[in-house]
């Protein structure tokens, strides 16, 4: 009997360790391949050059061209998702009736459940043509519509997590604010949102993290042209869509083109790792405030 218990415990530990080893494995592979990449390409060129042309005969390896695409689409996405998501969270928490809240929350979750390839197609086939009606110079592939649609996709991250954060604010604070003669609006923005700020910041960081890592929407709708630009109307390429492009092509294993995937992947990993660490820090530092 005791042996059986021990065996079960061991099995559970084994499964848990799988996640840890996977993470370590990924980091090791990324690092190794990146090291051999950087033995061929100067790290200074990697961070300063604004051209990314590893697949052409005249090769440039400036990650800024890809990073700008990633940052631009993510900024547009968060520019959409933050105001909309936060408004939804505040509405659900402060204004909506219990029954309406129960009804609407599953619908929001559905937004996150739609396959991203559908979003990508939606951006290319619907949003871009609509935007072109308003602004005819918009190119077929552009970061604007990819960013907007990505923003719609990450709304539930912000609305749901921010609503949880607002819900966790002690009821007594809401009562204090109302008792002072605050309107709902004042209560929401002067008391509730500041009190829930750590949770809201975390929700935004997770949403940005998700946007930076998002691949399908940008690969379909933003184009495949690495450009160091902040112009949202022209085609760009993000780090993720570059990786897709090369992975699907026929870059021979061990070649420099092949190694660029890992250098780009490592950059992406550093981005999201920093963001997640920051959200972890915010959580630790500010969360126990109202005990």
């Amino acid at each position, binding site marked *: 009997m005791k042996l059986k218990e021990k065996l079960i415990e061991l099995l559970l530990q084994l499964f848990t360790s799988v996640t840890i080893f996977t993470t370590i494995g990924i980091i090791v592979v990324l690092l190794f391949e990146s090291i051999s990449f950087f033995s061929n390409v100067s790290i200074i060129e990697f961070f300063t050059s604004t051209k990314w042309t590893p697949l052409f005969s005249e090769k440039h390896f400036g990650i800024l061209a890809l990073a700008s695409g990633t940052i631009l689409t993510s900024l547009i996405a968060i520019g959409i998702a933050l105001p909309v998501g936060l408004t939804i969270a505040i509405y659900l928490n402060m204004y909506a009736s219990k029954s309406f809240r129960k009804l609407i929350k599953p619908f929001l979750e559905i937004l996150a459940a739609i396959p991203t390839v559908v979003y990508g197609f939606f951006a290319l086939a619907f949003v871009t043509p609509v935007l072109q009606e308003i602004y005819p110079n918009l190119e077929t592939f552009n970061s604007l519509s990819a960013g907007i649609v990505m923003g719609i996709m990450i709304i539930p991250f912000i609305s749901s997590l921010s609503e949880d954060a607002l819900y966790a604010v002690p009821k007594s604070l809401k*009562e204090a604010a109302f*008792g002072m*003669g605050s309107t709902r609006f*004042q209560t929401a923005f002067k*008391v509730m949102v500041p*009190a829930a700020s750590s949770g809201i910041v975390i929700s935004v960081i997770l949403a940005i993290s998700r946007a930076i890592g998002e691949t399908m929407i940008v690969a379909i709708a933003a184009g495949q042209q690495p450009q160091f630009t902040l112009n949202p109307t022209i085609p760009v390429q993000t780090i993720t869509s570059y990786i897709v492009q090369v992975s699907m092509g026929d870059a021979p294993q061990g070649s420099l083109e092949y190694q660029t995937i890992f250098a780009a992947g490592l950059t992406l990993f550093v981005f999201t790792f920093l963001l997640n660490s920051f959200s972890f820090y915010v959580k630790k530092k500010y969360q126990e*405030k*109202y005990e």
Partner: protein
Amino acid sequence: MTDHVKDKELKLPKISAEDVNVFYGDFQAIKNISMDINSNTVTAFIGPSGCGKSTFLRLFNRMNDYVEGFRMEGKIKIDDNNIYKKKVHVEELRKKVGMVFQKPNPFPKSIYENVAYGLKIQGISNKKIIDERVETALKQADLWKEAKDNLNKSALALSGGQQQRLCIARTLAVEPSIILMDEPTSALDPISTTRIEELIFELKSNYTIVIVTHNMQQAGRISDNTGFFYLGELIEYKNTKDLFTNPKNTKTENYISGRFG
């Protein structure tokens, strides 16, 4: 103004409840209560848990409006105006009728910002005026000496008793005429409780205070009039000394003698 009119105004109750019934869904929390509360008095509501005393108190600043299924019949008049009329501006009402809660609930802001909050949401932005009112309110709430050098410190760093005095200061800063207190000392130690009780006694000259308390000694110490609530009814309501020494109703007598509660 003639003396006659003046007299009449003085005699007008500050708060007047007429045939008030309160329901939460099917449950009747308040049963046909009428009562008058005069200006510049301290009125205590006592009674066992769930007797409706807090619910009744919260009618005076319409804090029950947010409770799901809340329904009220009857009238609550403050300065002879029914506060449950349709066109009443609830936010304006709450500036006149301040509230201090059971658990100290300062905002997670600085001491200064807590007291200034009510002024700022009223659109007062003149720093000199706000500074003055913050100082006055903190002095009135007997917190100025402890707080004057720490105005920018987080209110959450204060002790429980200090936090509660801060909440009183925050309420006083908007210059209400009525202060409702819902068991304001139940979460505090005896020394902090004494300070708050002394404070309530001082505030009486300028404010009308209604306090819900579990503590009968407290009601006896600080209030002019006391109402005893039981199962949603106002069983007995009169001069505090009278109620404690000469209760007319056996339920009141049983409660104040500690036979139940």
